[in-house]
């Protein structure tokens, strides 16, 4: 009896895998299989790549077969993917994930002191962690879909670059100024989009991001246009420069001069900035303003019936989210020493949003893990060159299929009477934009 059922399953799986394989053949046969190019004489020639097609079709066939055999027709169930016993072991481990990540971040420059590549990658990842946490306020807490977040990153970067170059202001004075200017533009964006929701909000924020980029591109006198701004002052250790002089950092602290000092300093700087973002967000969530953001995400009309000024609440979310974007931008400018509009394209906004959605909207730990996985994974697959995007896209689809609410979908209440219980992701709203 059981054997008959298995055989039937195998037959059904084979049939479905064959169908999927045929569909893949139809799709890839011409698109991948036949390639046109310009020949040596300038005429159009074509060549075939049927071996690639065979590989793709085989992959689709094998994948479908495996899925059918493992999960049957019912689709991919997460419960069957992760056994219960493993879950029971993983649950207490999750509690240590945040301290473990923080501890690792703190000792990373010590462990990898001689590995410049790892240090640079760490700085890059932490920049995205900070950007993710900043956008998390707008998207995750207030539920406002912002596709133009990179605009505030750009405002912060150009604010620092211009203020430092023209007025000779130090990084530590420019940092709050960059944040304030970015927050100002956050409010400027907030006003026109207050009445918009969902798709319309997303489109306008996307347009806003592009406007800022195009202004930077065309306002040659101020921003240098496509050439960008170069030789932006590097950060100093609270006034002590990182150079080989007698009053440089190395000499004053009795160390041998090394270019790594500055990198390590930059690493701890972005770590501190990111942790400040995190701390402020966690505090804000427990304050009336943070609760109002989350209530706004849940039900805007109910908020108004309770006397909450939804206009101001949305504007503060935009402003504070933008402010952290501005801080990150100022850091980016001082780290790179060179900025141009190219660094602030829509792809950056999409990447930051992907980190927030992948991590689980509203979850600080989830966003941090997603940033590490996304940016780290991107670097890890560097040798795969053109297939990198493919792998990245496939990984994203898989994660979203298994965990539609992101890696950490549950929400912890900001206040409790007896016991803080996690709220299941299915109950938490995503906001209407």
């Amino acid at each position, binding site marked *: 009896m059981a054997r008959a059922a298995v055989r039937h399953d195998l037959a059904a799986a084979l049939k479905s895998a064959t169908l999927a394989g045929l569909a893949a053949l139809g799709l890839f046969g011409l698109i991948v299989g036949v390639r046109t190019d310009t020949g040596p004489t300038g005429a159009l020639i074509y060549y075939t790549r049927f071996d690639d097609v065979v590989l793709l079709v085989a992959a689709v066939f094998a994948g479908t077969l495996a899925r059918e055999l493992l999960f049957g027709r019912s689709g991919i169930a997460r419960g069957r993917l992760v056994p219960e016993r493993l879950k029971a072991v993983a649950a207490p481990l999750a509690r240590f994930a945040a301290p473990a990540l923080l501890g690792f971040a703190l000792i990373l420059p010590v462990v990898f002191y001689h590995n410049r590549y790892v240090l640079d990658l760490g700085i890059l990842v932490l920049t995205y962690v900070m950007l993710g946490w900043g956008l998390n306020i707008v998207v995750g807490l207030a539920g406002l879909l912002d596709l133009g977040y990179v605009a505030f990153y750009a405002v912060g970067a150009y604010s620092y670059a211009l203020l430092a170059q023209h007025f000779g202001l130090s990084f530590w004075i420019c940092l709050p100024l960059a944040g304030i200017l970015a927050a100002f533009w956050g409010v400027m964006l907030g006003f026109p989009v207050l009445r918009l929701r969902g798709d319309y909000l997303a489109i306008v924020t996307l347009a806003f991001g592009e406007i800022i980029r195009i202004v930077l591109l065309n306002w040659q006198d101020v921003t240098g246009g496509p050439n960008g701004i170069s030789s932006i002052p590097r950060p100093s250790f609270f006034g002590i420069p990182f150079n080989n002089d007698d009053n440089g950092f190395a000499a004053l602290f009795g160390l041998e001069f090394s270019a790594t000092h500055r990198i390590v300093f930059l690493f701890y700087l972005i770590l501190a900035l990111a942790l400040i973002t995190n701390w402020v967000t966690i505090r804000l969530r427990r304050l009336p303003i943070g609760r109002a953001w989350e209530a706004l995400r849940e039900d805007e009309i109910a908020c*108004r019936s309770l006397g909450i000024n939804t206009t101001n609440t949305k504007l503060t979310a935009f402003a504070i989210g933008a402010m952290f974007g501005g801080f990150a931008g100022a850091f980016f400018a001082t780290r790179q020493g060179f900025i141009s509009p190219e660094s602030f394209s829509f792809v950056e906004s999409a990447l930051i949003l992907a980190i927030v959605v992948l991590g689980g909207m509203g979850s600080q730990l989830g966003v941090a893990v997603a940033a590490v996985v996304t940016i780290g994974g991107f670097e890890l697959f560097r040798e795969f060159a053109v297939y990198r995007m493919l792998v990245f896209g496939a990984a994203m689809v898989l994660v979203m299929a298994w965990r539609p609410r992101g890696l950490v979908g549950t929400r912890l209440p900001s206040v409790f009477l007896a016991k803080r*219980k996690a709220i299941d992701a299915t109950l938490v709203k995503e906001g209407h934009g």
Partner: protein
Amino acid sequence: MSAILTVEHLTMRFGGLVAVNDLSFEAERGAITALIGPNGAGKTTVFNCVTGFYKPTVGTIRLAGDAGAEHLLERLPDFRIAREARVARTFQNIRLFPGMSLLENLMVAQHNPLMRASGFTVLGLVGWPTFTAAEQEAIERARYWLERIGLAARADDPAGELPYGAQRRLEIARAMCTVPRLLCLDEPAAGLNARESAELDELLLFIRSEHDTSILLIEHDMSVVMKICDRIVVLDYGVKIAEGPPARVRDDPKVIAAYLGVEEDDVDTAEAEAGL
């Protein structure tokens, strides 16, 4: 007794449709006033005008505040009606914050006093003691109402997990956490079973006797209306057709006609009397 809410010549038009036509009525302070009428009579439209979700086409809505002050509700945006005139409301299709715990729902309702206590976030961010005290007070108020509606044991559960009847009670508790002068309830007994309905009656009578809150409610359930209301206003096709204490309204021929329908011949007379 003085009036807490005075509605005068209220008219609300949506394009060519007159949802409410020249309606005047009063809700007394410390009383439970019911707004009843058949489906489409314009009850919820009146509610939306009172709570600022609609701006009336014509008419004034006045709410008596402290020390003889008066709030002109038709001129205030919705959130200021809730904040300054202190009119709280519930919704026909419950609008809780489903992904937030019961306690959080009640804390959001106390947003404005807490916002002031947190120095508009600045003092709260550094954990200023006055804010901590204010927050503790807010938690105590929330606890008080949770105990009142019998949900204290579920304070940390998400609101979306509650059964329907409990969600209705929680929505009333949330409105009460704003310490309202006037509580507007849109069909509070809809979908409740007999026991839950009795609990609701008890809760509303408790609010009337123990709190300085007047109640205006829309209701279909006649048993609730007749049992607990002090005064009833009957609407039909956006026009007031009767007003008075329950016993009198119940026997009013125009009300019976509006609810149960009448013989063909009586329609003209009834409409003539209603001024249609």
